[in-house]
């Protein structure tokens, strides 16, 4: 089987790492936003739901 792997340059590897970190941070921020936002919007009402 021939070598068909992609070899990244240093610049491309650094850029990829930078994008990955930013994406991870954005996802974490989104989770926190939904959690805190739900808590602020509904408060204790979040526990009141039809069974």
């Amino acid at each position, binding site marked *: 089987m021939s*070598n*068909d*792997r*992609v*070899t*990244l*340059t240093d*610049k*491309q590897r*650094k*850029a*990829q790492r*930078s*994008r990955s*970190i*930013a994406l991870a941070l954005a996802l974490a921020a989104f989770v926190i*936003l939904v959690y*805190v*936002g739900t*808590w*602020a*919007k509904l408060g204790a009402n979040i526990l009141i739901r039809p069974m």
Partner: protein
Amino acid sequence: MSGPLKPVARISAKTQLPPVNDKIERMPLVEKNASLDTSIGLSEANASDYIALLKPRVMSLVVFTGFVGLMAAPGQIHPVLAAIAILCIAVGAGASGALNMWYDADIDAIMKRTAKRPIPAGRISREEVLTFGLLLSAFSVVTLGLFVNLLSAFLLAFTIFFYAVVYTMWLKRSTPQNIVIGGAAGAFPPMIGWAAVTNSVSMESIVLFLIIFLWTPPHFWALSLFMSDDYEKAKIPMMPNVMGEASTKFQIFLYTLLVAPVAVLPWMMGFAGPVYGVFSIAMGAAFLGYAWTVWRAPVGEAMMKPAKKMFAFSIFYLFSLYAVLLGEILVRKALLVAGA
């Protein structure tokens, strides 16, 4: 296939550019001969390039004016929901900026001021930017609608549509009135902030809108006076290129004559205090002074010093008006808390 891969090809001024009205179909992302290269284009874009797509400097003014609108509004909002509202306004503004850069990549490559943006510099492809802009638009509108209220979400969606479609796609390349009408997009944030608290649009929020709306033409035309060569090269019909320098200077003065008294209205209507009243009158007089100097300056003067000074002052003018208004509101709220 092995070995280092090529980054996304650069759009340069030498790249064959499409005619204005035939942009989407014919606009090349890559140099003509790059189509023969079958290697995968791997991105060299950093996270900072994606942040640049959001036009952070424009975003900062949008966030600030949106925050003032939110604070000036009567009523209560949970601080977390207020923070979410501001975040959504910021992300929505950033999304508009990204969509603008997606559509305008061809003319950005021509103008000195914009040639280093991520698309013309070849660091990010247009498709990625379009996806990025649409995703952020959807995120900001849906989040604002779910956590705050539907009116503010609708206003944010309309603002993004107005900037990306009405201004960028329809007006910018077709009429010298582009920034007069398009200025509405930049004027909506305080109205969105106000609606986030009150779930309504009132005269007060319309006045906050009008201040930015009427401020935009003198601000941008002052810039276009000393950047007219760039706009000429990119074939953007800015006022100085279409109507001439003298007419532009006169219209700058006229719009300044309109914005100066409108900026005093928050005090006259009673939702700003005397400090703001006096400050807005003084700043309006100073703004008019700059506009007068620009108008009376000789036509064809190469340095355009009065226009440059007026452009710098216009940013300070808007920022300081909103800052004083915010300061007064904060003092009033602090006094209420202290008195309670």
